[in-house]
């Protein structure tokens, strides 16, 4: 930054930087800020796709909170999904990253295997899993039958459908794993050597060196997983279509249906703002309460040994 100052101090203020960043500025107005403001305005209206729109104030929000059981039901599904998916996603990514961080031959190959599902995502992922979950000739229930148990009707039983979506989503954890692996590899080896010399057991090294040193990465992946969990739509839309018995009817799917099936754009816009506020509040809360346990390199805390 001091270098940049050195250069600019010799120059008069110029238009050049603004020209370079202009694509993003324009895009921000046309594809982010504009739509957001528009959406906020829509949320205060009764706004059908065709026909007369009417200003209704906060009525959409009021209806949602007090008269719409489906709002609470779909929010519950999303919260349940997030509450199970986010911790599992991070725990499993962490486990795989730790395994890959052991110095054995062929880790590059294993790393590729874990990352591979990430590159396809979307419809293809759903089609692959639909096949595995099939009640009659699915691979998963065949594997379970070999173990001597009868597998459930994964996509047809409301008690199992959400778990089916969680497992299919976990298949794409490669990106999270890669971030944690990068974090692990940047922990100075000297820390572990010092611990080993002092006779600190392996589990204590994990607990007192690895996890604190990795905490910024864990926090980052926690927030990104949380955001993506709340937006979960494609997999449920194609794998279960929200069923059976609305057991996988996610919040995002209810928004989608309100907008594009029931053509109630105002109500859908209001719901999308509620989702945004929830995500924002959760992220900020996590950031605030994480300050106590997230360790940043070079940071000195009150105690002096942070």
């Amino acid at each position: 930054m001091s270098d940049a100052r050195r250069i600019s101090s010799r120059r008069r203020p110029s238009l050049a930087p603004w020209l370079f960043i202009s694509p993003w500025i324009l895009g921000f107005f046309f594809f982010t800020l504009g739509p957001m403001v528009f959406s906020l305005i829509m949320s205060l209206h009764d706004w059908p796709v065709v026909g007369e729109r009417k200003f209704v104030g906060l009525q959409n929000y009021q209806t949602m909170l007090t008269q719409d059981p489906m709002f609470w039901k779909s929010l519950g599904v999303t919260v349940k999904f997030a509450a199970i998916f986010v911790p599992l996603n991070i725990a499993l990514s962490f486990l795989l990253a730790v395994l890959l961080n052991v110095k054995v031959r062929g880790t590059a190959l294993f790393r590729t295997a874990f990352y591979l599902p990430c590159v396809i995502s979307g419809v293809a992922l759903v089609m692959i899993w639909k096949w595995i979950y099939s009640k009659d000739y699915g691979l998963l229930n065949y594997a379970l039958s070999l173990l001597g148990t009868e597998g459930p009707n994964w996509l047809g039983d409301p008690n199992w459908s959400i778990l089916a979506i969680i497992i299919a989503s976990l298949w794409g954890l490669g990106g999270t794993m890669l971030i944690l692996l990068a974090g692990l590899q940047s922990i100075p080896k000297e820390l572990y050597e010092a611990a080993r010399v002092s006779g600190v057991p392996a589990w204590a090294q994990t607990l007192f060196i690895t996890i604190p040193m990795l905490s910024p990465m864990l926090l980052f992946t926690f927030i990104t997983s949380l955001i993506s969990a709340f937006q979960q739509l494609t997999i449920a839309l194609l794998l279960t279509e929200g069923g059976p018995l609305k057991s996988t009817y996610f919040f995002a799917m209810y928004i989608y249906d309100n907008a594009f099936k029931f053509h109630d754009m105002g109500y859908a816009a209001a719901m999308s703002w509620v989702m945004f506020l929830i995500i924002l509040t959760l992220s900020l809360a996590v950031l605030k309460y994480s300050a106590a346990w997230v360790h940043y390199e070079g940071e000195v805390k009150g105690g002096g040994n942070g």
Partner: protein
Amino acid sequence: MVRTLTYGALIFFSALFIAPFLWTLLTAVKSEAELVAWPPVFWPEEWRWSNFPESWAKQPFGTYLWNSTTVVVLSTIGQVFSSSLVAFGFARFRFPCRDPLFVLLLATMMIPWDVKMIPLYMEFNLLGWINTLKPLIIPAWFGEAFFIFLLRQYIMTVPMEIDEAARMDGANAWQLYWRIHLPLMVPGLVLVGTFHFMNAWNDYLGPLIFLNDQSKYTLPLGLGLFQGRYDIDNIAIAAITVILCLPPLVLFFFVQRYIMDNALGSSVKG
């Protein structure tokens, strides 16, 4: 001991991660009878490669492929170009509000797609873009926060002396970007291009919302269409899924060095 356990766990988990791919590939070349057999047939008696052309003919997949290719190529070019321009602007200049603007840029990554989806639909409707490929291409020409952030990191690693030397030789800002920095950030551009390619190629929700006519469909929408039918054609689904997976997988194998290097930094090279 630790080594054996590690290997055991690594092999176990990679089998879990790879199995779904193999299963789909094997399904795609089975016969109808083998498909519904119980216990499942793992190795088809005869590999029916003809399943691929037959499935391809069940819908206008040629048209879908053309649409997908148009979207992916045009939007990837736009994304790489615009994101690198903006990244250069943020990395190499000092101007009023630069840092708050950059924070704002990072903050936009937290906005859920659902919030923008509805007003964007209205906006594109107003512009007459609905049922055209424009909503899937044009926004990519205005850069994306994550990619801008990534490319800015690349530019920041280039010593300032290089810029100063070029300025001494009379290069203006554009020449500095085009002649010096663009060639230097090729690995970053490959990475952005790849990530964008994968997003655009796999995208389902965007096309679902913005396209109506089957003649405008992209490949993922066509594959999704199999789903809604009464007679679910499982062989066709598996075959088209394999075809849909191929381009990103092939691309990944070519660029995986860049992806891993970027994520893992220089520590893996040593």
